[in-house]
């Protein structure tokens, strides 16, 4: 069923049963992929709106629902949790199952977890727009919404670990470990935040640490880890070469586990000196993992550049690898006092967030998602639409990242001149910010063809299934839809 999609063949870990593995993801793909892509469309639209609002105070100022301070975190929530995290987890499970040479275990848990997850994102996005933001950066969704996500992630996590444990081969695949890390990390950071931020007696500075620690963990370890795992999976495939180094992969992995979670404070924070020092040390050590990833990517891609650039999936994963390294490097630099004193609190850190989430995570997900859908459902998606999606996503996010970094540097330099009137520093940085609107626009437009491709493909799958049932003259058993397999 899945052999006719014409994708480049490759050797799977166990070398067998790849088709069966793929097919075991059919119900999951049918139920959850469209939802993830809808969040992508919603999130890119909301962040576009936020960006447009910066062009002037009166832009859509009539309603509290559409105010900048709500639209932006709502859009970010949709992109991070609704799309990148959700689709990244599905793809991660798929690469895990392939590495283990096993069908997805307990798909029912993944489906149930996915439903809770989507309800949680919905409650989060609507909650923020309605004014129920927690006011905690990176964790703006109301705690009830985060709780739904956490339960959903836990259910999915059980299925992931079951799938990994069911492997029959003795070999281990470190790139698949990132998925397992992601599954644990989400539950860990989110439930700690839920448990510890709830009480009214938590002092302000401790709340700051908890929310930064959890926010950092979700962004860099959960989402960043999923992204890194997917890049390590997809880059060698696009380059048609094996991954350069297993050792470097291990370094990246354990650095993410042991160092990155500490990277939560920055020089000048209103916290005890030792806490700030530990945090800064965390940033420094985390850079080791980024460096290892950079060398690994480089060696894998070396000599295969033409091949990497010859397909849209290849271009996306190459972009993701570059963005991941750029984000990690800048994150390290901003933890240095000399750099932080200039660019902290400017647009530059926003540019870094976009490099990691929009570039590192979203690009790699967009690179792998089409193949996942095609293999899971046995239906080819429209290549023209996918191509358009890839190009607009690359250019759009690229413009966003570069223009925000530029705006941040200009803003930081002019703020460093205390003689410069404040409004002049604002005006100086606004050119870059306005340019980023163009990037947000392209990025949003680019998701419409993806939506069309996915909806078109999956509708055809459903139609075929109904047709097959009818032509067999059987009552629907649910088998054609793959509801149980």
């Amino acid at each position, binding site marked *: 069923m899945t052999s006719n999609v014409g994708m480049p063949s490759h050797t799977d870990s166990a070398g067998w049963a790849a088709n069966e593995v793929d097919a075991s993801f059919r119900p999951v793909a049918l139920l959850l992929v469209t939802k993830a892509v809808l969040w992508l469309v919603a999130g890119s639209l909301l962040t576009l709106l936020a960006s447009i609002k910066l062009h002037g105070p009166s832009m859509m100022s009539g309603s509290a629902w559409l105010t*900048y301070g709500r639209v932006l975190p709502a859009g970010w929530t949709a992109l991070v949790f609704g799309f990148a995290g959700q689709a990244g987890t599905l793809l991660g499970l798929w690469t895990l199952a392939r590495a283990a040479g096993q069908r997805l275990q307990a798909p029912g848990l993944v489906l149930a977890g996915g439903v809770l997850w989507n309800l949680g994102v919905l409650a989060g996005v609507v909650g923020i727009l309605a004014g129920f933001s927690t006011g905690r950066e990176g964790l703006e969704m109301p705690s009830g919404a985060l709780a739904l996500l956490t339960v959903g992630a836990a259910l999915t996590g059980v299925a992931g*670990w079951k799938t990994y444990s069911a492997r029959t081969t003795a070999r281990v695949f470190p790139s698949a470990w990132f998925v*397992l890390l992601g599954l644990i990390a989400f539950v860990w950071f989110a439930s700690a935040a839920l448990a510890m931020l709830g009480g009214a007696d938590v002092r302000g500075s401790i709340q700051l*640490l908890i929310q930064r620690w959890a926010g950092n963990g979700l962004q860099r370890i959960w989402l960043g880890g999923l992204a890194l795992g997917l890049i390590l999976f997809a880059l060698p495939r696009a380059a048609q070469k094996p991954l350069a180094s297993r050792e470097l992969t291990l370094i990246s992995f354990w650095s993410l586990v042991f160092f990155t*979670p500490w990277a939560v404070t920055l020089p000048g924070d209103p916290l005890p000196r030792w806490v700030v020092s530990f945090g800064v040390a965390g940033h420094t050590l985390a850079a080791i993992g980024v460096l290892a990833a950079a060398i690994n990517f480089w060696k894998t891609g070396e000599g295969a550049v033409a091949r990497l650039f010859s397909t849209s999936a290849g271009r996306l994963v190459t972009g993701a690898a570059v963005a991941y390294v750029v984000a990690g490097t800048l994150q390290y630099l901003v933890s240095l006092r000399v750099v932080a004193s200039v660019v902290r609190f400017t647009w530059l850190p926003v540019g870094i967030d976009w490099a990691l989430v929009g570039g590192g995570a979203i690009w790699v997900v967009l690179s792998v998602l089409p193949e996942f859908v095609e293999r899971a459902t046995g239906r080819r998606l429209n290549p023209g639409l996918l191509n358009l999606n890839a190009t607009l996503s690359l250019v759009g996010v690229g413009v966003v990242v570069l223009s925000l970094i530029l705006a941040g540097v200009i803003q930081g330099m002019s703020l460093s001149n205390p*003689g410069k009137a404040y409004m002049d520093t604002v005006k100086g940085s606004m050119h870059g910010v306005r340019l980023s609107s163009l990037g947000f626009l392209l990025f949003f437009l680019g998701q419409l063809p993806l939506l069309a491709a996915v909806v078109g493909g999956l509708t055809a799958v459903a139609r075929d299934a109904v047709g097959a049932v009818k032509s067999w003259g059987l009552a629907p058993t649910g088998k054609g839809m793959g509801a149980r397999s």
Partner: protein
Amino acid sequence: MNSTPLLFLGILAGLAASWWGMVVAPKLQIGSAPTVVLKETGQHYPPTRPGVAQQGAEVYRSLGCNTCHSQIVRPEGYGHDLLRGWGPRRTVAQDYLRDQPIMLGSVRVGPDLANIATRMGSGDSNAQPAMVAYHLKHLYHPRTVMEGSVMPAYPFLFEKRRIVEGPSPDALKLEGAYAPEAGYEVVPKEEARVLVAYLLSLKSSASLVEAPVIPPPTNAPVKAANTASIATGGPSR
């Protein structure tokens, strides 16, 4: 590391270590820090926020003002927050003791607000009504008081209504393109009032042992370039 349980334990150990180091240990150290009694005034610091200001903090949170405004003054050598006049000293953990939630912010599209209450008319109680009026107009439409501002307007925090028995005393004094049509006036809703009360509660200027207030540097040209008084339509920054 071929075994699944070991991998699982390794991950848990790594994540748990950071939790102990970055959350639990600091909490043990400063998590139950008490308010301090200030030498000069004998009052507790930080003071409890008046109820209206606390309601205003909720409006600030709900509208996401912290997506554009920070509340942190960094020490000298970590940027020029002090030279910009954003506060008389750096902010420290003590300043945030009562904040629930803490809204420190991470991006400054607009200026820092840690000391917005003292930046205008610094403690002069006669200046209070003028400051309230300034903030209300600014929230209604920032460009009524700040040329070229990119801060969003918040007209939905106000009510435009027909003047019936003479203009009400709390109507905004709006001019030109921002004025309502003849016979109408713009008055702040409750949300706008409490929000301004919150802004006027934002001050981290008490001299603390760990962050004493040092007399401001005599940086005359800088001051001259940035000072605008309420009378001339803008705060000093």
